[in-house]
């Protein structure tokens, strides 16, 4: 079994809505609600959905620009969920997720070996540390896990990078390109001294198709497409393992968009990059992705390899979404599924299947029971009662 580069497990992110004099929490925005998926090395996973579906929140939570409400974020061989929590919270997370569980399992199974054998992946690895190096002691295990946090955080930040949507607001207007792109490598000590910074920045700029002569320019001296290339260069400068591209080409003109998409594909080949490509645009997703995840109101409704998804979309929402995309070919007259109404609010999502209020196929069951994501064909997952 291939090991995923990033594994997201049962991720939940709720945002509180506060009101009144005491700013009490009156409701929660359920932006991401129990989402799990893997990203494997070298592939592009496309995350697609309309506004409010939680796709951007997933990217931001993955990067820990938001802390998850619950769930696990595993990068490579490490659980990174507690990396950016204050020590006490990190401790209680680790206790809850590992030490208490291991001790409970030990009581049930009797021997440490049978506990370890019953576990898989990261749990097994941590159980080995717990029963081996830490000799079953919670405090020792915690001190192992909580050691070298600075290094762990730095490695995490180096491995995961992001390219934002808006090439205007995502570059600091007061900094020169050299500083914007060079800051990361310098902080992470990939380069030392001015000469090496300049060399590094020139090299990545040329990688993204911008002349190395421009390193002393400011962002406003570049066009939108060039700025987005600088945004890509900034991510690339740290030789990351995963780049999250959050609507990275949405703000660009058509002729510029194709340049940046082609560039990102070329860079992926050259540097063996992995992308999590977040977009609302199914046509772009189809072009760049290997695997596609479709989201609706904080949930995954369908996920499959690109070809399967586009050849045979199974979820009614995916089908409606696909049929809604205008095709630049006047010879094709296709059947269009027009969905009724607007996307409901994620504060009070509909009961049962969240899509049932707009679904053209919904039956009574849909409003009562929430469908689970099931594998209906090899590698093709759908959350719908009506798909057999």
């Amino acid at each position, binding site marked *: 079994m291939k090991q995923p580069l990033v594994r997201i497990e049962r991720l939940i992110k709720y945002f509180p809505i506060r009101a009144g004099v005491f700013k009490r929490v009156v409701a929660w925005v359920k932006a991401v609600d129990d989402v799990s998926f893997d990203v494997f090395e070298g592939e592009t996973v496309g995350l697609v959905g309309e506004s409010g579906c939680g796709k951007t929140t997933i990217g931001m939570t993955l990067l820990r620009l938001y802390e998850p409400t619950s769930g696990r974020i595993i990068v490579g061989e490490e659980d990174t969920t507690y990396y950016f929590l204050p020590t006490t919270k990190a401790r209680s997370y680790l206790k809850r997720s590992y030490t208490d569980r291991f001790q409970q399992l030990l009581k049930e199974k009797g021997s440490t070996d049978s506990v370890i054998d019953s576990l898989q992946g990261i749990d097994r690895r941590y159980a080995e540390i717990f029963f081996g190096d830490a000799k079953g002691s919670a405090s020792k295990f915690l001190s192992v896990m909580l050691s070298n946090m600075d290094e762990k955080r730095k490695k995490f930040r180096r491995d995961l990078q992001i390219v934002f949507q808006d090439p205007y607001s995502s570059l600091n207007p007061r900094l020169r390109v050299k500083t914007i792109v060079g800051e990361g490598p310098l902080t992470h000590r990939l380069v030392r001294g001015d000469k090496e910074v300049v060399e590094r920045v020139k090299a990545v700029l040329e990688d993204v198709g911008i002349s190395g002569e421009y390193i002393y320019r400011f962002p406003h001296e570049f066009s939108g497409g*060039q700025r987005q290339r600088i945004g890509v260069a900034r991510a690339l400068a740290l030789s990351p393992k995963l780049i999250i591209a959050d609507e990275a080409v949405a703000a660009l003109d*058509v002729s510029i968009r*194709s340049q940046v*998409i*082609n560039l990102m594909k070329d860079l992926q080949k050259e540097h063996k990059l992995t992308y999590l490509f977040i977009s609302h645009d199914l046509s772009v997703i*189809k*072009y760049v992705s290997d695997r596609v995840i479709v989201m609706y109101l904080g949930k995954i409704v369908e996920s499959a390899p690109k070809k399967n998804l586009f050849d045979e979309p199974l979820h009614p929402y995916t089908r409606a979404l696909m049929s809604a995309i*205008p095709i*630049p070919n006047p010879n094709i007259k296709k059947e269009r599924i027009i969905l009724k109404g*607007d996307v409901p609010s994620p504060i009070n999502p509909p009961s049962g299947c969240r899509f049932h209020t707009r679904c053209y196929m919904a039956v009574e069951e849909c409003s009562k029971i929430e469908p689970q994501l099931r594998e209906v064909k090899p590698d093709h997952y759908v959350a719908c009662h009506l798909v057999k």
Partner: protein
Amino acid sequence: MKEPILSVRNLRTYFYTEDGIVKAVDGVDFDVFQGETLGIVGESGCGKSVTSLSILRILDEKGRIVEGSIVFDNVDLTKISEESMRKIRGKDIAMIFQEPMVALNPVFTIGEQIVEAIVLHQKVDETTAKKMAVDLLRKVGIPEPEKRVDEYPHELSGGMRQRAMIAMALSCKPKILIADEPTTALDVTIQAQIMELMKQLQREYGMAIILITHDMGVIAENADRVVVMYAGKAVEYTDVKTLFNDPKHPYTWGLLHAIPRLDIEQTRLYNIPGIVPNPLKFPTGCKFHPRCEFAEEKCKSEEPELKEVVNGHLVRCFFWEKVEQAKKKEAGDKQ
């Protein structure tokens, strides 16, 4: 032969800014026929929006129509007084915008804003106008129109706001509706709803629509006739099928190959090199020549005219036949 209800000829709108003259629109020609949709397509800064603002004469103070004619109902709109223009604006020619939140006044209810438009152009009292407003909201598919008519724009969702805008634009049964990127700010499923609504209302009212967009897909599905604009100029003008099946301008051809598509498999998107030019520093000669793979010496110095190369197909390019060869080669590669 059908008579167009709006004819734009050689339109040039310049902005006199402190940094210099911005030739936002610099040579655009097209006709709009009753019941038809004319699409204007191009990238940012190509002058597609300024073209529509020129038709309604709602340019800001720096902008001026310096040449050309806009003939509507046998009247040249560039020549008439502001007072006569005000009678046409909103009544015969109405407009909807990309951002309904910006276009609607936040301190008045939806109803008040529609009533204002009705009372201004029609001889009815406010009570009747309010009833008409409710009917219009129902017609554009707003649920519970009796309640919604008294709500403020911020109380509606993006799609509902755009519907309210359309209701307002339709209040005086205009002959021409100008829709400037009407669905760009909306989600695709909502975009599909709005485009469907516009088509249905067009059939019902028999009005002409000028649809301005950057989205080739929206054009292909909704326009009857298309103007492709680049750097302030119309570079190609023909009916929609011909444009997509047989594009003749290198820019149109490149653009159609540069978009990711759902309907075909693509191994690599076509790269139009370079950037969209700055309107203050448009290149000499053909404005597209620095980015054109077919350009020759002549293109750098001389400016091509918008010429009819085949029946009803206008192209602004000296070497459009080279695109024909590229298309033949492409067809050969496929086999």
